[in-house]
């Protein structure tokens, strides 16, 4: 196949294909800070907490579990999600944090998920688990990628895991043997092969959601805060998550805009 990509694009594409993900330092720190500041102010508003200015935002988020009651966690999460998604700038800043790599990995005419998801995983909490899964198995299009942004440093069980492509190939060939009767059984068979992501605030993870991934109970001493959002090329095939209801165009180019509105001239039959 002809490939006119530049050498840096070829390198990134090769890495993405080989590892199933890429981690990079954002080149738009201002946007990333905006996202974290908005989350912190939303926590203050919804949980009646005060971020003491002499303490870092990182510490405020990491120690969140010490400040709230466990049974209120999901309620807080939903309220914060609503607040961030009501903020008109939030989505744009999210996109800008990852724009450069999205243009290389996905394309420059993009659709973005309409609502950004937020994960809060307090230590030892088993109510926010995401068992091993591939997003494609639940109706996403294989043309999508996930941009995962941590608001705190994430490591070991405070992070997420992903099954590398070479290991996934073995699973794909013999799926029933691996999957067994439950996702728990499936995970037990792949847990030694998965890659635990180590990522710090300031970095962005972009991963291939077709690969099995998930999380386990957070056994570290800090709360994990991360956001995730899907992106795809506007004109590539959609899965169960459609344009309008789940995705919206965010970088439609002028040639496409003109083409979408183009109408052939009408010929009057009498003339």
């Amino acid at each position, binding site marked *: 196949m002809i490939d006119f990509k530049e050498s840096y694009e070829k390198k990134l594409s090769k890495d993405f294909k080989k590892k199933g993900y890429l981690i990079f330092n954002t080149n738009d720190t201002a946007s990333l800070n905006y996202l974290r500041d908005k989350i912190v102010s939303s926590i203050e508003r919804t949980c009646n907490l005060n971020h003491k200015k002499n303490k870092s935002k990182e510490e405020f988020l990491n120690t969140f579990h010490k400040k709230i009651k466990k049974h209120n966690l999901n309620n807080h999460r939903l309220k914060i999600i609503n607040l961030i998604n009501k903020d008109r700038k939030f989505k744009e800043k999210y996109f800008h944090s990852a724009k450069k790599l999205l243009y290389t990995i996905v394309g420059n005419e993009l659709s973005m998920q309409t609502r950004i998801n937020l994960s809060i995983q307090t230590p030892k909490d088993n109510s926010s688990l995401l068992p091993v899964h591939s997003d494609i198995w639940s109706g996403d299009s294989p043309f999508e990628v996930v941009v995962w942004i941590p608001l705190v440093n994430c490591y070991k069980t405070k992070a997420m895991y992903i099954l590398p492509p070479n290991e996934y190939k073995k699973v794909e060939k013999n799926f029933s043997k691996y999957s067994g009767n439950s996702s728990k059984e499936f995970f037990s068979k792949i847990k030694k092969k998965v890659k635990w992501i180590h990522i710090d605030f300031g970095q962005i993870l972009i991963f291939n959601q077709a690969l099995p991934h998930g999380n386990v109970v957070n056994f570290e001493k800090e709360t994990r805060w991360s956001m995730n959002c899907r992106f795809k090329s506007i004109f590539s095939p959609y899965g169960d998550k*459609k344009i309008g209801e789940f995705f919206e165009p965010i970088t439609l180019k002028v040639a496409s805009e003109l083409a979408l509105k183009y109408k052939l001239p009408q010929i009057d039959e009498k003339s």
Partner: protein
Amino acid sequence: MKKVRGYMFSRNFMGERVPQHIQNQVIRNFCFQNNFQYMLSAVEYSMSNSSLILNQIFNETKNLDGIGFYSLFQLPKKEEARYKFLKKIVNKKKFAFFAVEDFILSSSKDIEKIETIWLIKKILPKCLEAKDFKNV
């Protein structure tokens, strides 16, 4: 509290079919979440291209604040009719919401967004499918 009349379909729209009681639940739920007063839903005639019920609801809007659609793909199919309808809503300082898309129309800028999504949705069946890429 703003008064909203629901609007549902009894026919397919853009290849989708949703039972009416489900459309009703989704509209009612959207009203509840956004603190709107829900005034039951009117069902569009099943003849293709009919917008007769929609027009009737619009004529009643002096007693209403807005119209609650299940989906934005239930708007009139013809571009001109759709634009005219949306423009009338904005000009009369009313609003329309589209529950599935979680979107509220209240300004001219919103009309542009709706139109773009409509046009992309219409063109997608003509775009390459996953299997086509394998032949490239």
